[in-house]
C-alpha cells in the first residue's frame, strides 16, 4: 500500500513540478510561519464550529477539540518541516483516513485547506512584503505542498469509496444469495413432490416435507441412512450396486430420465412412484437429487380407465353378439319347434325338447340382459304412477310367484308438508318397470317362504328437488357388507344363475332418471332397496 502510495505521491510531485527550490522556499518560510501556528489553528476550528455539516463528526466537546488542535499543530509542523519521504506520506494518508472514518465530508477538508491557504498567503504577504518578488514564488511552493497533501487525502477518500463499493457489492450478493436460498427452501418445503438428496454412497442428506408425507418418515429418521430404506425388494439390494456401477462406469440408468418405480413407506406399504434423478457436483463432491411423486392415485385411475375401456369393448362385442345370437337362437327355435311337432307322440322326447326350450329361453334372457346393459339407454319420459308400475312389475312375475307363499304390501307414509306421498313421477314406464321387476325378482330369489315384501312410499325433498322415496323391504337374510357395497357392480352376483347385470341395469336406469338406488340392511337385518326418483326430470 505504502509503496504504491509513495510512488503516487512522487508522481504527483513531478506532475506539479515540485523540486529542491520548493523545499528551500519552504525552509525559508518555516521560521516565519511557525509563530502563527496558534492563530491558524484557532481560526481553523472557529470556522469549523460555524458549519454544522463540517463539525458533526466532532462529538467529544472541548476535550476532543483540544486533542484535535494538537494533531493539527503537529500536521502543520510536519507539513513545513518534511522530510517528504515514504513515512511522511504514510502518516498523511492515515490522517486522511481518520477523517474518512469519522465521516467528514471530503468537501470540508478541501474547504479548510483552502482557508488555510488563504490565511497563509496573508501571513506570507505580511512577513515578506507584497512587492517582494520572491513572495509569489514562496506562495507557489506552499501551494504545491498543500496540493500534494490534498492529493494524499483524496487518495484515502478514494480508497474508502472502493472499499465501500466492495462491501456494498458483497452485502448485495449475500442478500440475493439469501433470497435465493429462502426461495429455494420455500419451494423445496412446499412442493408436493418429495425431494431427497443423497451423496454418492447413497446416504440421505436432505429429505423435504413432501418426502416425509410420501414415505411416512420424519426427515431426521432418514438423514444419514442409506436411501435403499425407501425401496422395496429387490431395489433395496440392487441400489448400492447401481450406485457403485455408476461411480465406476459412468453409465446412467436413471439419471436425467424419469421413470416409474416402487417406493416403500415406513409402515411397509409399497406404492407406485415416479422418480427422476439429477446429478450435482459441488466442490468435487457428487450428489444426486431425487424427485419423487406418488402416482398410486394416478395408477388407480389409469387402471379404472383401462377397466372401463375393456368393459366398453366387451360391451360393444356383447351388443353385436347379442344381436347375432338372436339369429342363431331363432334357427335353434325354428328347428326345435319343428322337432317338437315330429315327436309329439313320444312323451320322453317331449320332455327333453321342453328342457331344451327352457335352456334356450334362459340363454335368450341372458343375452338380452347383456345387450340391454351394453346398448345406449333411450328413454322417453312421461308422468307415471310409480305404484302402478310396481304392481305391474309384480304381476309380470306371476310365473315366478307360482306356488310361493308371499305377502305383498304397500304403505304410503306422510312427510313434511304432505299427508300422503305423491306417487306421480316423470319416468320411462318400461325402464322403471324393468327396475322394479329386477329388484322384486332378486327378493323372490333371496327369500324363503313365507315371503313378506313391503313397499314404502315417502315424498322427500332431495337436494331441493321434490322426489319420491321407494323402499322395498323383505324378510330375507339381508345383505352382508360386501354384497351391500358391490350389489350394483357389473357382473357381481350372489345367485348361481344370472349375468350379474340385473342390479347394474337398475342403477343405470335409475340414474338416467336422475334418481338414486342403494342397498341397505333394514332394522331387523333384512334387505332393503331404497330408491329415490325426482318428480320431474330437469
Amino acid at each position, binding site marked *: 500500500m505504502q509503496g504504491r502510495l509513495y510512488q503516487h505521491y512522487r508522481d504527483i510531485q513531478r506532475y506539479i513540478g515540485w523540486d529542491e527550490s520548493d523545499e528551500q522556499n519552504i525552509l525559508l518560510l518555516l521560521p516565519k510561519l511557525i509563530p502563527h501556528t496558534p492563530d491558524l489553528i484557532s481560526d481553523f476550528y472557529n470556522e469549523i464550529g460555524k458549519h454544522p455539516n463540517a463539525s458533526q463528526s466532532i462529538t467529544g466537546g472541548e476535550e476532543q477539540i483540544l486533542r484535535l488542535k494538537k494533531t493539527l499543530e503537529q500536521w502543520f509542523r510536519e507539513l513545513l518541516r518534511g522530510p517528504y519521504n515514504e513515512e511522511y506520506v504514510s502518516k498523511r494518508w492515515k490522517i486522511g483516513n481518520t477523517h474518512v472514518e469519522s465521516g467528514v465530508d471530503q468537501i470540508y477538508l478541501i474547504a479548510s485547506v483552502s482557508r488555510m491557504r488563504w490565511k497563509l498567503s496573508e501571513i506570507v504577504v505580511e512577513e515578506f512584503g507584497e512587492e517582494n518578488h520572491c513572495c509569489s514564488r514562496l506562495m507557489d511552493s506552499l501551494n504545491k505542498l498543500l496540493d500534494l497533501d490534498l492529493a494524499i487525502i483524496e487518495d484515502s477518500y478514494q480508497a474508502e469509496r472502493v472499499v465501500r463499493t466492495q462491501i456494498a457489492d458483497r452485502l448485495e450478493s449475500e442478500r440475493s444469495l439469501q433470497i435465493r436460498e429462502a426461495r429455494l427452501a420455500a419451494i423445496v418445503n412446499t412442493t408436493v413432490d418429495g425431494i431427497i438428496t443423497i451423496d454418492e454412497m447413497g446416504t440421505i442428506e436432505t429429505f423435504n416435507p413432501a418426502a416425509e408425507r410420501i414415505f411416512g418418515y420424519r426427515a431426521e429418521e432418514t438423514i444419514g441412512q442409506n436411501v435403499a430404506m425407501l425401496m422395496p425388494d429387490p431395489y433395496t439390494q440392487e441400489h448400492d450396486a447401481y450406485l457403485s456401477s455408476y461411480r465406476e462406469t459412468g453409465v446412467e440408468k436413471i439419471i436425467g430420465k424419469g421413470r416409474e418405480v416402487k417406493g416403500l413407506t415406513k409402515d411397509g406399504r409399497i406404492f407406485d412412484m415416479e422418480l427422476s434423478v439429477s446429478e450435482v457436483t459441488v466442490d468435487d463432491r457428487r450428489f444426486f437429487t431425487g424427485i419423487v411423486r406418488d402416482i398410486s392415485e394416478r395408477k388407480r385411475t389409469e387402471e379404472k380407465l383401462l377397466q372401463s375401456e375393456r368393459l366398453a369393448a366387451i360391451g360393444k362385442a356383447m351388443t353385436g353378439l347379442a344381436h347375432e345370437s338372436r339369429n342363431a337362437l*331363432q334357427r335353434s327355435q325354428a328347428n326345435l319347434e319343428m322337432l317338437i311337432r315330429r315327436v309329439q307322440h313320444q312323451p320322453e322326447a317331449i320332455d327333453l325338447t321342453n328342457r331344451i326350450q327352457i335352456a334356450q329361453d334362459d340363454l335368450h334372457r341372458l343375452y338380452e340382459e347383456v345387450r340391454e346393459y351394453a346398448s345406449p339407454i333411450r328413454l322417453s319420459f312421461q308422468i307415471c304412477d310409480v305404484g302402478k308400475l310396481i304392481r305391474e312389475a309384480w304381476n309380470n312375475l306371476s310365473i315366478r310367484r307360482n306356488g310361493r307363499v308371499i305377502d305383498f304390501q304397500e304403505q304410503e307414509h306422510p312427510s313434511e308438508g304432505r299427508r300422503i306421498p305423491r306417487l306421480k313421477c316423470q319416468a320411462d314406464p318400461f325402464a322403471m318397470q324393468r327396475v322394479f321387476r329386477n329388484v322384486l325378482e332378486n327378493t323372490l330369489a333371496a327369500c324363503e317362504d313365507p315371503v313378506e315384501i313391503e313397499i314404502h312410499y315417502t315424498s322427500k325433498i332431495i337436494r331441493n328437488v321434490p322426489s319420491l322415496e321407494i323402499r322395498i323391504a323383505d324378510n330375507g337374510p339381508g345383505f352382508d357388507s360386501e354384497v351391500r357395497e358391490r350389489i350394483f357392480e357389473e357382473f357381481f352376483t350372489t345367485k348361481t344363475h344370472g349375468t350379474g347385470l340385473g342390479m347394474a341395469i337398475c342403477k343405470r336406469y335409475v340414474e338416467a332418471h336422475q334418481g338414486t338406488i342403494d342397498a341397505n340392511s333394514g332394522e331387523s337385518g333384512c334387505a332393503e332397496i331404497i330408491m329415490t326418483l325426482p318428480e320431474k326430470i330437469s
Partner: protein
Amino acid sequence: MTESLKIAVADDEVEMRDYLRETLSLLGHHVICVADNGRQLVERCSCEQPELVITDIKMPELDGIDAAGQICKDNPIPVILISAYHDHELLERAVLEHVLAYLVKPIKQADLEIAIGLVMRRFKEFQALHQQADDLRQALEDRKQIERAKSVLMKRAGLDEADAFRRLQKISNDKNQKMIEIARMIITAEEAMQ
C-alpha cells in the same frame, strides 16, 4: 280358427324358410311363395298376389323393408317384419313403409299366430277406413257435378233450383240411369253448345 290366407315369406336362412312354411301351413294358411332374398320376394309377389307378406329384414340383394315398400306401392298388402335387429333407424324405416308388425327374433309359433291375427284385423280396419274415405270423396265429387248440371238447367230452362233438381231426378228415373251420369251428360252437352 282364423281364415286361411295366401302368404308370401322371405328369409335368407333355410331353417326359417322351412319353419315359416311348416308353421304357417299348420296354422291353416297357404304359403304361396318362399323367397330367400328381397328381390325374389318382390318378383314372386307381383304374380302371386299374396294377402300377407312375412319377411326378414337383412337379406342379400334387397332388404325386407325396401321389398315391402315396392310390393305395397300399387296394391297395399299387410307386411310383418321379423328381424334380429331393432335399432332406431330400422324402426323408422319400417314405420315409413307402413309395416304393420315388427317381431324381434327369436320368435315362436305363438308370436306368429298372434301377430298374424292382429295384423289382418288392423289391415281390414285400415282398408275399411280407406274405402270409406274413397266413398266420401266420390260422393263429394258427384255432388259438385250435380250442382253444375243443376245450374245449367236453371240457366237454359229458366227453372228455379228445386225444379232443376226435380227435373234431374225425373230424367234419371225415366232413363233408368244414375243421377250423376245424367248430370255429366248435361254438362257435356252444355260444353258442346258453347
